């Protein structure tokens, strides 16, 4: 016998969940904004991402790199689940991969590691990110001066701790 739902219960099920605006992150008080690009730079940037992934285990992430350099066992060691991340070595097709991943809306976090980005590429990614309401995280070693990133973070190591400095924050 199937359980019978009351009208109120059906209403609750049908109600669209309130759109989240940020992914919680203990290192950044305002969180990581959804629907925009966050730029993460500095010597502790990957460590910072492990914190973010660990705190958002219910969000699936796509990790795109031109050439694979992440060491997955180190991620697992820091408490990131292997099921959470799909890795892609995109070589010259990074833009295609990122845009299609965002359009598919299958991932709420898209992390890409690229040193040099042009403004057209970033603008396209920003538009797709906005539509997908995902958190796109651009990882690079040095902070860049592009208006497309709504949040720019610099992460430094201080012993075993991370020092996260907000270089720029744009109102969403």
């Amino acid at each position: 016998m199937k359980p019978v739902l009351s009208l109120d219960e059906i209403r609750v099920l049908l109600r669209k969940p309130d759109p989240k605006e940020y992914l919680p992150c203990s290192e950044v008080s305002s969180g990581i904004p959804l629907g925009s690009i966050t730029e993460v730079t500095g010597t502790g940037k990957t460590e910072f991402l492990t914190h973010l992934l660990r705190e958002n285990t219910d969000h699936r992430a796509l990790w795109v790199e031109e050439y694979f350099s992440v060491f997955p066992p180190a991620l697992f060691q820091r408490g990131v689940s292997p099921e959470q991340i799909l890795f892609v070595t995109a070589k010259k097709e990074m833009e295609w991969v990122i845009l299609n991943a965002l359009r598919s809306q299958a991932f709420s976090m898209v992390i890409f590691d690229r040193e040099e980005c042009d403004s057209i590429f970033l603008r396209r990614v920003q538009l797709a990110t906005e539509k997908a309401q995902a958190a796109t995280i651009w990882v690079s070693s040095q902070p860049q001066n592009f208006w497309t990133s709504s949040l720019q973070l610099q992460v430094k190591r201080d012993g075993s701790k991370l020092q996260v400095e907000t270089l720029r924050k744009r109102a969403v």
Partner: protein
Amino acid sequence: MRFACILLLPKDEVLQLSLAEACLRFSPEISLGSRTIILEIGKCRTLYSEELFIKRVQVLLKRFGLSAKVWIASDIPSSVAGAMYGRALPAFLPIEALYCYFSPFTFDLSLEPMVRALRKLGVETLAEFIQLPHHSIAKKFGKDGLLALHRYLHAHQVVWNRFQVSEKIIEQFNVESHEALYDYDSISFFLKRILDRVVMRTCGLGQLISKMRLKFYLDTYSSYQETEREWLLEFSFPHRSVRAFLDMIRDRVGADLQKKSLSAPVLRIELEVLEMVKGNPSQFQFFSQQEEQQENMNLLIERITNKLGKENVFYAVPFESYIPERSWKKAMLPVKAKELRLRSRPLRLFSKPELLRQLDQYLILREYRWKILQLVGPERITGEWWLDDHARDYFEVHTDQEILWVYRKPLTQELFLHGVFD
């Protein structure tokens, strides 16, 4: 019992078979007539209403590009007569409706002289026909007359002729002579229609497509050597949506046509399903988006795999080895990680360790230079003794810029940079 009759206007034998397969989603009890598809839907009353059934059939017909009349009645001949004449009561059915009762599947015209004679006698409707004295029907029209009357009076006793699904699912589209199809964009417009039919047929069979062949037959001018182009499309995950297939075909075929364009216009497009897997082709769950998200993800993985190769899209899976670069593997499906009781590992690892030079307090690699502040270690990693570099002494090297993961070979004392604590 309730029977639905779909009467195709005009007759199209190929599409009739395809539509019948697509109709298997409504009921497994299907029978084919010369231009009709008859379904027994009485047992599916809890799944859908008759009104909903008619609406869904209309959607299917639209997708197949067919027009048809649909009628539901409690016996097969009445449903056929209803579809044909748009009414069901004998008082309103013309005497020609006797064909539907005499042979509802084939519309046997052997009764034509009798029907013509009845018309001359002023019998215009079926109601008038059954009011005729039975012995006079037998006297005037013989056994055919009696048989027609018997079949009308016992309309529910028609032998059910069950439809057998075709062994192969092939859909074709013949291009009109005035349409010159060379590029993928114009071809995809027609391809969508074919795909739509293929997906509906497989859905009707409760199957999902995992492999298919796409073939373009080209115009055969004597100066062109290429007469056809074909692609074998294999899918790691079976899909159910036309959009998914179109995206994947565009990635593959569109890219191929950009590299090598068609030498002649396409005359015919053919799509054949080669492999199917049992699956649930029904719609996604209403209250949860999980299924939809999973399907989107499968599609994305499939498309990236097609574009970049299998080795470039993966989940990382831990693997038991002490050698760092061999301590994980690429996998198509994720697994849960075991707890690693090792010293902290760097988040970035070089695929090939780089030979370092040490000059006093400095480590040098090409144009890069790090000042050593502190050394943590060593951590001896050994294991695979049959390899040359089976022993390594790893150090966490805290420098003025970052923390490096460096190892020294005990035999040669050479230093290698293997990773960075990023």
